[in-house]
């Protein structure tokens, strides 16, 4: 194919998407696409696949590197006394480091933030203000709802009964998230205050976390982890009331 040829090979289309098409074909391609909206749309959908991949997976880059990935067999490189001294030094550093990591100041974004807190806040902010479409499946079909969500989250999912605390279940929905979808239940009290319970099935670093409070983007939340299930109760209500609801939910789920 000579460079004047105005027809393009499939490889050139791909190369255009990946920024690997060179001049003069690049300019010719741009001219071609300006007149061929259908091809342009196809290539645009390929580019979007690239950006969606980054959106899904780039936060893996921020995860701390597990110890087991680092070199183990550095033996023979240092004499024994140097290794002992190094061991003592690193243990001391490790102690200091874990002290700092646990302290409030160094509490950097964790897997809880990215996989539980932030998605739960987002879900609350998007769906709680929805009058008609706050949920996908309403409470009057809750048997369907629980069955469906249990299948998709691959664990037993039920919405706890909060009537005793003045909150009625409106219904629930499935939400997209990494690895497995998540579930959201929406509740409302007589004053039309809404709280949402976000449920996430995930391999957490810790087996059990009890009632941590966070306030993010004007949403208050208690979250906790029970085995592989993370829960986040969000609402714009009093902290004490939110905590007491969290206790009721936790008790009803562990019963």
């Amino acid at each position, binding site marked *: 194919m000579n460079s004047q040829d105005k027809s393009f090979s499939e490889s050139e289309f791909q190369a255009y998407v990946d920024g*690997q098409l060179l001049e003069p074909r690049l300019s010719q391609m741009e001219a071609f696409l300006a007149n061929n909206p259908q091809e342009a749309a196809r290539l645009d*959908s390929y580019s979007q696949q690239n950006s969606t991949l980054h959106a899904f997976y780039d936060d893996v880059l921020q995860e701390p590197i597990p110890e087991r990935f680092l*070199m183990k067999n550095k033996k023979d490189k240092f004499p024994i006394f140097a290794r002992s001294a190094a061991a003592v030094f690193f243990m001391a550093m490790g102690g200091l480091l874990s002290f700092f990591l646990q302290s409030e100041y160094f509490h950097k974004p964790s897997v809880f933030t990215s996989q539980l807190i932030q998605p739960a806040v987002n879900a609350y902010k998007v769906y709680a203000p929805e009058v008609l479409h706050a949920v996908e499946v309403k409470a009057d*079909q809750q048997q*369907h709802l629980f*069955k469906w969500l249990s299948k998709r989250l691959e664990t037993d999912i039920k919405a706890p009964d909060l009537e005793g605390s003045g909150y009625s279940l409106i219904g629930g929905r499935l939400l*997209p998230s*990494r690895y497995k979808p998540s579930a959201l239940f929406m509740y409302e009290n007589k004053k039309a205050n809404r709280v949402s319970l976000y449920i996430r099935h995930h391999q957490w670093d810790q087996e059990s976390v009890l009632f941590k409070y966070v306030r993010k983007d004007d949403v208050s939340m208690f979250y906790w982890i029970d085995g592989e299930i993370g829960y986040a109760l969000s609402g714009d209500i009093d902290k004490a009331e939110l905590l007491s609801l969290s206790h009721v939910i936790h008790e009803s789920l562990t019963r």
Partner: protein
Amino acid sequence: MRTHQYRELTECIPVIRRYARALTNDMHRADDLVQDCLERAWSRLHQFQQGSNMRAWLFTIMHNIYANQARRYNKTPQLVDIDTIADFPCSNSRQELNLELYDLEYALQQLPHEQREVLLLVGLEGMRYQEVSDIIGIPVGTVMSRLYRAREKLRNIMEGDNSIKVQGIND
């Protein structure tokens, strides 16, 4: 010189981890893959030629391990059976499909592993086609055709949902 290579390899860990995660869609399997890859890399670091491409070297090791494993795992695809989830009220099925539209991960898992690999090396890792060809050990032409087929398949999965969505709106 050794410290330099040590640092270079360590700096590549997050990238190969991201790739493994996307490739397997399973955090534990991905990290096992990374660990297998790194164990080999650490033990052969002395063979690594100063000045050659560390990232490409690691991806080549990972490709070989993955290709071996994929032969084993191929028999048990981790797909969600759409029929088993279709038994909830019809009025909501449109929203459900709408969500799938964003579920690129789900679509990724439907690709044959050879296509998924090429798509991720190009689309996520931003590699040049020649580099992908060297890593996987296939001609550039094969890289291009796998890439094209992977992208078309993903697009079809998504547009398949779209057509259903359009029908739903017309009802």
